[in-house]
């Protein structure tokens, strides 16, 4: 069974500290609530023995998306946070090497999974280095 809990973004590390020994991080789900101008972050934790889940939901502002990282408490969060940064541009303070994980290194067009990211022809025909044969 799943129990939801809404917390402020500052209490995230404290909550994560409590869940450290009985739960492991399942995934970080970022939802772009564009009409409220906020990012909704859901931290999904799964119990180590049985299958019940805890979902911590926090909100951060869209224009300065900052939240402190929990990759030192849960090592699994390292890649998830890098992917959230790559797709949404959320900066996790305290993360060791926060850089793009899925997109090419020199990707100039911002963060694709945001709602205001429109795929125009310029993005579609961009091929990075000068590719010729």
């Amino acid at each position, binding site marked *: 069974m799943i129990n939801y809990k809404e917390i402020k973004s500052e209490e995230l590390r404290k909550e994560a500290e409590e869940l450290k020994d009985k739960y492991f991080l399942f995934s970080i789900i970022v939802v*772009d609530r564009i009409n409220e101008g906020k990012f909704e972050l859901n931290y999904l934790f799964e119990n180590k023995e049985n299958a019940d889940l805890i979902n911590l939901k926090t909100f951060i502002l869209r224009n300065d998306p900052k939240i402190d990282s929990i990759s030192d408490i849960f090592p699994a969060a390292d890649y998830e946070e890098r992917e959230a940064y790559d797709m949404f541009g959320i900066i996790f303070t305290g993360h060791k090497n926060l850089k793009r994980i899925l997109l090419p290194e020199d990707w100039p067009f911002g963060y*694709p999974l945001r709602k205001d990211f429109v795929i125009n022809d310029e993005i579609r025909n961009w091929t990075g280095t000068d590719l010729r044969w």
Partner: protein
Amino acid sequence: MNGFEINVGPAHPSTHGVLKFKLTIEGDTIKKAEAEIGFLHRGKEKAAEDVTYMSYLPFVDKIEYVSALNMELLYSSLIEKALNIQISERAKYIRTIMAEFGRIMNHLVFLAAFGEDLGLISEFFWALRERELLMDIIEEISGGRLAPVYIRPGGVFFDFKEGIENKIIEAMEKLEYKIKEVHEYAIIKNSIFKARTKGVGILKKEDAINLGVTGPNARASGINRDYRKLNPYLIYDKLDFKVPVFDEGDAYARCLVRMEEIKESIKIIKEATKNIPKGDYLIKMPWIIKIPPAYTIEIQETPRGEIGMILVSDGSERAYRLKIRSASFFAIKAMEKILEGEKIANFYPILASLDPVMGEIDR
């Protein structure tokens, strides 16, 4: 040599797909390994927001293309959970059989890649020959081979024809014989194979669970966790099957776990095809469906591990946000931790034993 850097590049024959590792080497041991992924990032989660629920099915097959049927099952049960529909008993049986087919085919590709990485090229051909056995049956049932868009929200596309049951059982007998006679000796009981994989790439129990590793890789490190037993979906509660758990945590244990799982899946398929009930296989559903605003989570045990799909729907006929939690995403993270201090020659058995699939990691 004080740590020169070597790139095991994206197009290396034995990295499973396009996965790049930057290894800094000192003499023959790897000092630091850093994975670089994203070479197959096709923007699936963005595609979910542009395409209606039903026509997202072909995308779902391509997420984890080695066992496509399990991903279809996951997506279909997610949509059904969001609309809280109950599918018919017969469709549940058919879905379990197809999911177990996906699991066997996945582990056969694992054996093929594992054998070839360690130099036994014939194992590649034997394992894929067995896989062709199953491909013919899936083609007969669903019409497709690798990505048969067969399981859909509301049931399955086509019904099982009459003669198909004993064809399945006969194929399972043949497969069981082949596994015991050919693959047991070629892989498990082969002394050079044991020497290459025993005690190599040990993933300790607490490391595995902290890094979020689930599925066969976790069960090989002593974590007794099978989502089909923890939270049984479909008809897994009616079936009795054993969950193989080893606690050495090395490449050999990961191979043993998968070999046992093939045998368990064969048992499940036989039992399920014997007492498959009559009934309709599909609930009438419109093609364009609108899901009321909700936050639904669906996790299932795929051959890779526990893959989760989280759907945030806002009432329109397109998903507002679909998150796919991939299992080998964390296996690659665990691999970086395992590789410190290992030899270069062990890089390939470890990578082959963790069995990552790039489509699922890069989404």
